[in-house]
């Protein structure tokens, strides 16, 4: 009991100390209150009673996006919008209904605005309608006194002059979703848009700019009396792309003859992308104001996936365009020489399995160059069993397949390069020799994107430099590209053998793309056709005489072509994939020819990318 008493005494003493401490803190709070309300009350009263300071954020102008010659690809147009500031009226519905009599707003929209106005603080403006016509603006101006709580604001709206042609590269901007919210207060501005896809997304921060602040003195009724201080907004930085807008437009036009296709033109030495088209595309202008459900569903239901940039995210078996890799792998390992010959009888037997060459009657004796020229399958079947899949994959890896490049479009995909280890991890099974044979002609597990095929071809024809693709040249004044690339480490003589083969594919009358050659002197192209099988036609179907063209669209072959020009001094590389388009030589090669011819005529490489000025325009006032 004695101990308890002592303990209790300690507690009592200390509890009183705690109580005194609390009392002291309360006194501090009281003192602060007295300081603010009594000592400084007058000062704050003047600030508050007669006038109050209204701080507005000034929205910055979004940076423009231009092509390599300064042609605008994304700009900002003036945009008038009607805003509702809920705290300025007691009868929001009344104001909105009166407004609906003047300009076209449907009743559903009114309910939506009412709901939205309740969600956030009443001083935050809610967007009622944007992109008002001059007619609407003047009607509003005249009647503004009868519309309490409603105001007109001038802002900017994103516009993409090339529409569908550049949709996949530029992307689009959209309203800020909860997911996009960060600490940046700029995101709370009404009508503020941020990049949602492609360059608009990858470079959103650079394009966004910095908001300004305007401090206004406002009287009790909320009318602005005078501006106290303004810190101007700083526009976003202008971004200069490597694209040649005209080449882009022409390529897109040419591809639109097919149901679903993509094509890239790239600089073999620097890696700059001159054009990159994925057809069908979409018009990004549809998105800037919020796309209609109808349009959205149409885009989603299209079997050719217009929203996807297939040039960077479409993954296809490379088919015969992969044969250069198999050939190089053999040459580098001394498993084949320039004159190593194989007899093609139309069938290659391995164990009990039979692998057929596309030409059933066989090609007779072929060597590396003629096998490439005629796209003989047997030659590569024969080589592949000696090389092994891991060596083939390692060579493909050196030429940029099966990897991402940290490209300016985050939509890029890595494709797939199978190895023994990969198959064990993925399927828990051993690699079969037959699978190597299939892989040697770019079938089976192997997948590559059109961008990767362009990179592969560039590295084959540029003297063996490990070039990587890029789209953005300048951000504001800052140069952000790399033009010099390290050597991969492949023997020059072997690369020359491959180049000779690719030259003959197009320019030898036995070549698979001879009919697509470019005749103009000094503009000839080289390349390689590819036809990627999607579905095998089985024996029964073959017996019935079913051909690939008779199948349903989605089961037909992909048509591929990788090309470069001019043959004498390669500069432009082009890769083309026509989804389910049929044969590479019949469909893809003519496309590549037209695009490469156009690229050489326009010759976008003649000039370096222009260093563009930082846009210094001041944005509209939002508040």
């Amino acid at each position: 009991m004695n101990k308890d008493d002592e303990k209790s005494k300690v507690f009592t003493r200390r509890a009183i100390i705690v109580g005194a401490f609390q009392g002291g803190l309360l006194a501090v709070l009281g003192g602060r209150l007295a300081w603010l309300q009594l000592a400084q009350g007058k000062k704050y009263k003047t600030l508050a009673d007669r006038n109050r300071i209204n701080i507005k954020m000034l929205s910055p102008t979004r940076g423009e996006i231009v092509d390599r010659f300064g042609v605008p690809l994304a700009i900002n147009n003036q945009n008038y919008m009607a805003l509702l500031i809920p705290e300025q009226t007691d009868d929001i519905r009344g104001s909105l209904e009166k407004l609906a009599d003047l300009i076209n707003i449907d009743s559903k929209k009114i309910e939506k605005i009412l709901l939205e106005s309740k969600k956030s603080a009443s001083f935050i403006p809610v967007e009622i309608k944007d992109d008002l016509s001059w007619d609407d603006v003047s009607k509003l101006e005249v009647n503004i006194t009868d519309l309490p709580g409603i105001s007109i604001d001038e802002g900017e709206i994103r516009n993409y002059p090339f529409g569908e042609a550049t949709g996949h590269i530029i992307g689009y901007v959209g309203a800020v979703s909860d997911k996009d919210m960060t600490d940046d207060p700029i995101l709370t501005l009404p009508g503020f848009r941020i990049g949602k896809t492609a360059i608009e997304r990858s470079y959103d921060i650079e394009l966004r700019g910095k908001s300004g602040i305007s401090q206004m003195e406002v009287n009790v009724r909320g009318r602005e009396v005078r501006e106290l201080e303004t810190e101007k907004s700083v526009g976003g930085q202008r971004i200069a792309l490597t694209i040649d807008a005209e080449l882009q437009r022409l390529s897109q036009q040419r591809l639109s003859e097919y149901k679903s296709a993509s094509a890239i033109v790239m600089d073999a030495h620097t890696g700059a992308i001159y054009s990159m088209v994925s057809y069908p595309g979409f018009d990004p202008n549809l998105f800037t104001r919020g796309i209609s459900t109808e349009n959205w569903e149409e885009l989603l239901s299209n079997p050719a996936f217009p929203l996807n940039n297939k040039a960077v995210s479409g993954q296809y078996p490379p088919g015969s365009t992969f044969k250069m890799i198999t050939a190089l792998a053999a040459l580098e390992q001394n498993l084949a020489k320039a004159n190593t010959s194989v007899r093609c009888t139309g069938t290659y037997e391995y164990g009990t399995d039979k692998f057929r060459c596309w030409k059933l009657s066989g090609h007779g004796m072929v060597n590396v160059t003629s096998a490439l020229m005629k796209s003989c399958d047997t030659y590569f079947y024969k080589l592949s069993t000696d090389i092994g899949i891991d060596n083939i994959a390692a060579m493909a890896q050196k030429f940029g397949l099966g990897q991402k490049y940290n490209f300016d479009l985050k939509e890029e995909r890595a494709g797939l390069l199978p190895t023994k280890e990969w198959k064990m991890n993925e399927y828990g099974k051993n690699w079969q020799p037959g699978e190597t044979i299939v892989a040697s002609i770019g079938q089976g597990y192997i997948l590559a994107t059109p961008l990767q095929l362009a990179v592969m071809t560039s590295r084959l024809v540029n003297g063996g430099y490990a070039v990587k693709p890029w789209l953005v040249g300048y951000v504001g004044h800052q140069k952000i590209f790399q033009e010099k690339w390290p050597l991969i480490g492949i023997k020059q003589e072997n690369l020359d053998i491959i180049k000779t083969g690719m030259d003959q594919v197009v320019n030898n009358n036995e070549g698979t793309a001879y009919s697509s050659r470019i005749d103009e002197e000094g503009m000839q192209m080289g390349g390689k056709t590819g036809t990627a099988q999607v579905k095998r036609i089985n024996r029964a179907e073959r017996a019935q005489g079913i051909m690939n063209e008779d199948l349903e669209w989605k089961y037909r072959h992909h048509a591929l072509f990788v090309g470069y020009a001019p043959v004498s001094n390669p500069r432009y590389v082009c890769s083309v994939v026509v989804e389910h388009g049929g044969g590479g030589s019949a469909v893809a090669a003519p496309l590549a020819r037209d695009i490469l011819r156009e690229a050489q005529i326009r010759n976008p490489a003649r000039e370096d990318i222009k260093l563009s000025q930082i846009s210094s325009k001041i944005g509209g006032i939002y508040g």
Partner: protein
Amino acid sequence: MADRLHLSTDHNILYKFQNFGWGLVLLICAMACVGFTSLYSAAGGNFDPWASKQIIRFLIGIGGMIVVSLIDIKWWFRLSFPIYVIGFILLIIVEMMGHIGMGAQRWINLGFIQIQPSEFMKIAVVMVLAKYFHAASKEDMKSIRFLIPGVLLVLFPVALVMLQPDLGTSLMIVMAGVAMFFLAGAPLWMFLVGGGLVIASLPVAWLLMHNYQKQRVLTFLNPESDPLGAGYHITQSKIALGSGGIQGKGFLEGTQSRLNFLPEKQTDFIFTLWAEEWGFLGGVCLLLLCGLIFAYGISVALQCRHAYGKLLATGLIINFSLYVFINIGMVMGLMPVVGAPLPLVSYGGTSMLAVLVGFGLILSCNVHKDTKLLRI
């Protein structure tokens, strides 16, 4: 004396209500009424959307408080540790959900109510420490070996709350924990050494802080550096408060709070609205009201005949006072903006419920002040 102790174990309901501590209930209701009035005003003279809901929550909360207070303190004594463990598990669940949801997660949604385990934990830590120190002798309080488990009881949940990350709440738990050690009679030199260590480790803490937390501290030190962010709110809050003057602008006349860019006027900045409309007099009345509640709580502790109740009641009243100091200090620019509500006044269900449960426990200490608790 033995007789009294014997009698005290089976109080009937009538006895309990006679010795209930109605004064505290009255003070609580008065403070809640300040909240209703301000919320009514914040909505521009409307019960919707805040005041009506707040009244309903308060009535439910008061019901809960009475139930908590009528339950014999023996039960709370026995349940202290299990409650702590449950709170701890809930914190871990929240932490895991947060990782899955890829972001700060502080809530568990039970469908009809969202529970914020860290609120719950503030009470549970006080309960578990009160129990831990209940049977401690004077020698125990001097032995490091006895004190270290107590320190861990505080630090484990604090670490979890920090991970959420919720620096404000974790600091509040630490402060309440330190106060519990002090009240239980830990030697003074430990606090001096501990304080010294904290000051020495501040630079390290700065490096570990999230960017937004650093920003808050910087803004507090120099509000003009962030005119559109947190600093702006403080500036606006000070203008609204200051312009209230002695008598205030009158009920529903607080133009600054209602019209201006004062965010969360119904939650964190409600004191600003009150002091603008009711002036210095109103503000001081509210502070006095808080002071009376503190005093009531401490007097309950002093009259309580068992160490558990003494420690519990004081610990909980310290929790309450921390809220008050942090919130009011913040809106007057004395503290960084940490996002703490003003208990009983700010709009919000969870904090209201947690605070009323805390008061229920204090009242239980009052009703059962003579109950004999075993030394375990």
